[in-house]
């Protein structure tokens, strides 16, 4: 992190720093994580649209008081496949995790098939998608076999 960023946001003592989020996706990432800022004792700092040598422009999230689980890191990869996750304890990086799109996604995505049982019965069951392709990222509905492409996934989550 360079000085300019340090000026914008203080270092956090305990929590998670999510770096290399595609520019404009920070709020989607928050939503994906279940809006942790609404919970008692959680502070969230967003740095949006900063320059990145790797990505041109990027967003950074600092979530004080929450350590992302592996499950959450996997979900994160659905909309920010380049994201890197740093778990912080006592101002030190305890662990680095790279976002890897999960093989199976439950409940997060919605099928686009109007006749799919996961859509018709959405009050009583969760959707289940399995990865059909990693590049381009494509997920297939377990119930009807329809595919969701990258844009559809991004628009559903963001």
């Amino acid at each position: 992190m360079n000085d300019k960023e340090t000026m914008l946001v203080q270092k956090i003592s305990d929590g998670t720093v999510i770096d290399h989020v595609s520019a404009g996706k920070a709020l989607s990432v928050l939503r994906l994580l279940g809006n942790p800022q609404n919970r008692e004792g959680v502070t969230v700092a967003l740095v949006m649209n900063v320059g990145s040598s790797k990505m041109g422009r990027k967003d950074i999230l600092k979530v004080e008081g929450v350590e992302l689980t592996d499950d959450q890191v996997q979900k994160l990869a659905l909309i920010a496949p380049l994201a890197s996750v740093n778990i912080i304890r006592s101002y030190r990086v305890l662990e680095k995790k790279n976002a890897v799109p999960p093989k199976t996604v439950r409940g997060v995505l919605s099928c686009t098939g109007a006749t799919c049982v996961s859509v018709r019965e959405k009050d009583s069951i969760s959707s289940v998608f399995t990865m059909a392709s990693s590049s381009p990222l494509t997920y297939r509905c377990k119930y009807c076999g329809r595919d969701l492409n990258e844009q559809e996934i991004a628009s559903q989550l963001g």
Partner: protein
Amino acid sequence: MGRDAWYGRDVLSILDFSRADLELLFDSADSIVDQPVRTKKSLAGKIVATAFFEPSTRTRLSFSAAALKLGADVIDLSPDVSSLLKGESLSDTMRMLDGYADLIAMRHPSEGAALLASEVASVPIVNGGDGSQHHPSQAMLDLFTVKRLKGRIDGLNYAVLGDIRYARSAASFLYGLARYKPGKVSLVSPESLRPRNEVKDTIKKVGLKTEQHDDLESIIADVDVIYMTRIQKERFPDPNEYEKVKGSYRITKGSLANAKKGSIVLHALPRTNELAYEVDSLPNAAYMKQARFGVPVRMALLDLVLGGAKK
């Protein structure tokens, strides 16, 4: 192995079954057809539930008749009752039936409904059609009909005609063929009724090679099995389009004039005007026999899944 492969299993898609599984079913159905008096009441004391959330008298009665012939009792969630349950989730309805029956044969308009039911029910679910891809017992009896009448399934040329987009019988039949080594498999349909991407993907994945044709006439001399579907007017966004294409997918005495000798015409019935009544008297007409095989094939299926004959 053998019968154990069927025992207690859900029957959701024909793709869940190997060629050996299907052969076992067909052998069992053969003996029911050939020696009806020797068929035992192997399911006495069992209860088969039929749950049809979409009207289909033919399939529902065929499951009921099959169960009754094997000595099982049948309880029925009839369409008017199922509409009363509209406020209830499918999961809850299936859990209720799970408590009453040893097997549930169901039909539902939504894709994946049978899979969902199998997740909540502990007893085997037999999919009597859900969405527009899966109708395994229909595909099984269709393949059985080909085997009975032509002596084999391998090496024959097939033409699947009409609505390959919405007709679940057509998609299931193609999936079933993928378990065999058919000759040429031609899909004959108008642009708007060609298979959807997920069906095309599945066909490709299971290794079935198909050719697309616009009309039957150009290939009919080479086709052994003509598999027909209903073309429903309401499937066409533009009624003029329906008027334009319906004739090309209609089978009449005339359209069979150049048909290959010994070729057969299958149709899951009921028919609308795509299959002329004048065809009924031709030797090619196999759909009445096909319809009659519905009960013995479903008997064989219920017997294998409920394991009745093992005792």
